[in-house]
């Protein structure tokens, strides 16, 4: 047991000192396999690793990752973000701080196409910052809301992080997608409430109501991309396609929009995007394969059981356990990107989830949401790094500007822990 716990420590050290996460997990898995075969160079260690790698990748669910990544990349490069923002900015113009609200709403719609916070921050963020600056909004306020709204991307479906959790936990991707809708919308509503409060406090003025002559062309330009999440979710809900097929349809739809409807890119650009998608997917796959292998090694070493025993010594209450884990994930999220953290921790924590009788879907949403906060916290907040160039503000200043939104999101997570129905009601409708 001590040796297996040592492997957990070694994995953490290797990751913290900068070894690629996938290889750090692979190396520690080999050492773990060596422990139960008696020798790292025993031929059975190699065959176990090679077989595990093949078995893990040979999973139809995983194909959803490259398809959703491709759909997001194509939507971002097809000029769709401008059309989206233009439309929502007109709709919420009569509200005080209208572009702040538009910022959040555009992220909600964009989340249904891209599923990535960084894509939101860099693609949509640039347009949002430019529009807010030209209308005289405070730079700090604009940067804060742009950073915070990008967090909605990896929560609302389709989301790569949710697919990654579902694959590792061996639960339904569709259930995770439906479970994420209410939390994602709650985040958006609470950010908009804060924007409304700041707009009133700072004396921002409301704009005129947009007439039909203005709204109609903007709506026509934006409606086809807005339909993407509806196609995905309706297709899954009515059993027309599986999540993986839905992802392929989304990628095909994004290709159709970019090449034929908006004529923003040709086959050469499409090929480049497919190639980029493939590399991104391979990076994620390397981590999925070897974090799973590490999970197998940990279960052999009874580490999750020991962890469960330790936690039951602290509390037997699942709600308190979730609050304890939330604190742990907040710390982890500061140092590690969301998807790798999910991939590493899920196989270790799932036996505990079962022992405490927590709904795995509820658990997955809380974990994903909490780890998402790490995108806005130093030292590795990826969205903050992405926004330094977009906003022209320093990393430290951006981190400070995000504090109110981090507090708001933490309160939303606490609410979701206390009221699991908010998460599990919609996936329950699928059954």
């Amino acid at each position, binding site marked *: 047991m001590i040796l297996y716990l040592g492997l957990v420590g070694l994995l953490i050290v290797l*990751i*913290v*000192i*900068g*070894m*690629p*996460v*996938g*290889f750090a997990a*692979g*190396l520690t898995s*080999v050492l773990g396999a060596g422990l139960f075969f008696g020798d*790292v*160079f025993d*031929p059975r*260690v*190699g*065959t*176990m*690793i*090679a*077989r595990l*790698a*093949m078995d893990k*990748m*040979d*999973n*139809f669910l*995983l*194909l959803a990752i*490259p*398809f959703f990544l*491709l759909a997001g990349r194509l939507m971002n490069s097809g000029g769709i973000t401008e059309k989206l923002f233009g439309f929502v900015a007109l709709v919420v113009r009569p509200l005080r701080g209208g572009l702040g609200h538009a910022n959040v709403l555009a992220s909600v719609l964009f989340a249904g196409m891209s599923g990535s916070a960084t894509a939101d921050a860099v693609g949509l963020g640039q347009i949002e910052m430019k529009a807010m600056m030209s209308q005289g909004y405070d730079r700090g306020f604009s940067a804060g809301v742009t950073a915070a709204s990008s967090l909605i991307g990896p929560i609302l479906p389709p989301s790569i992080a949710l697919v990654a959790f579902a694959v590792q936990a061996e639960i339904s991707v569709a259930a995770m997608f439906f479970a994420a809708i209410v939390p994602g919308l709650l985040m958006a509503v609470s950010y908009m409430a804060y924007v409304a409060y700041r707009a009133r406090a700072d004396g921002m003025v409301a704009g005129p109501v947009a007439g039909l002559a203005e709204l109609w062309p903007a709506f026509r330009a934006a409606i086809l991309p807005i339909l993407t999440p509806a196609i995905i979710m309706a297709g899954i809900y009515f059993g*027309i*396609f599986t999540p*993986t*097929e839905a992802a*392929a*349809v989304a*990628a*095909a739809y994004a290709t159709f929009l970019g090449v034929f409807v908006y004529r923003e890119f040709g086959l050469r650009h499409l*090929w480049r995007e*497919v*190639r980029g*998608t*493939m*590399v*991104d*997917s*391979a*990076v994620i*796959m*390397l*981590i999925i394969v070897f974090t799973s292998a590490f999970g197998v090694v940990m279960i052999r070493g009874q580490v999750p059981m020991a962890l469960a025993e330790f936690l039951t010594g602290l509390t037997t209450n699942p709600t308190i356990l979730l609050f304890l884990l939330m604190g742990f994930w907040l710390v982890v999220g500061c*140092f*590690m*990107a969301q998807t*790798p953290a999910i991939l590493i921790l899920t196989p270790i924590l799932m036996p505990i989830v079962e022992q405490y009788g927590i709904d795995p879907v509820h658990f997955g949403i809380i974990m994903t949401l909490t780890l998402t906060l790490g995108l806005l916290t130093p*030292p*590795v907040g990826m969205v903050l790094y992405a926004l330094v160039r977009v906003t022209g503000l320093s990393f430290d200043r951006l981190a400070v500007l995000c504090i109110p939104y981090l507090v708001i999101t933490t309160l939303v997570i606490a609410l979701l822990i206390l009221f699991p129905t908010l998460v599990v009601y919609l996936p329950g409708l699928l059954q």
Partner: protein
Amino acid sequence: MSLNDPRRLPSGEASLPGWLSWPRQAIETVATALIVVMMLSTLAQVAFRYVFELSVPWTEELARILFVMAMLLTMGTAIRENENIIVDFLLRRASPRWRCAISVLFDAAILAFLFIWGRGALALISLNLGSTLVTLPFVSVGYLYACELFGVLLMALYVGIDLVTNALRFGGRLESTAS
């Protein structure tokens, strides 16, 4: 190997011998084409089910094996292009010389790991040559393990190049691109 570090040139890109450039491009083209066919196969599955009202079992298995092959072929590209995910807040604080030294150690450890993985894949090729896929009986499972071995060798090649490059930088025989 300080992957994702914008202050360094992608190692393989900088030091790949010229004669390796066309096989590299060929492999990447094949992998990209595999992804395209995988997507078409998945879409065909939906079309067969709803348009032609036919249940076609081979489309899913075909998409799966194409995905596995594409991923194995691309893992090497991810290394060459320094795309792998790392937590680099400590590494960034180290001096360029120290970063090279740490990268050499990482590369050596990764090569040892790839050796063990590759040896396993090699053993599984011969063990699985006789068994075939369920819906595509002309495809031997052994071929998939052969692809796995090829992917591992490709990764080992790029990690090896990175190791040599970093060792030369550490020894001062190659100018460091890190600031």
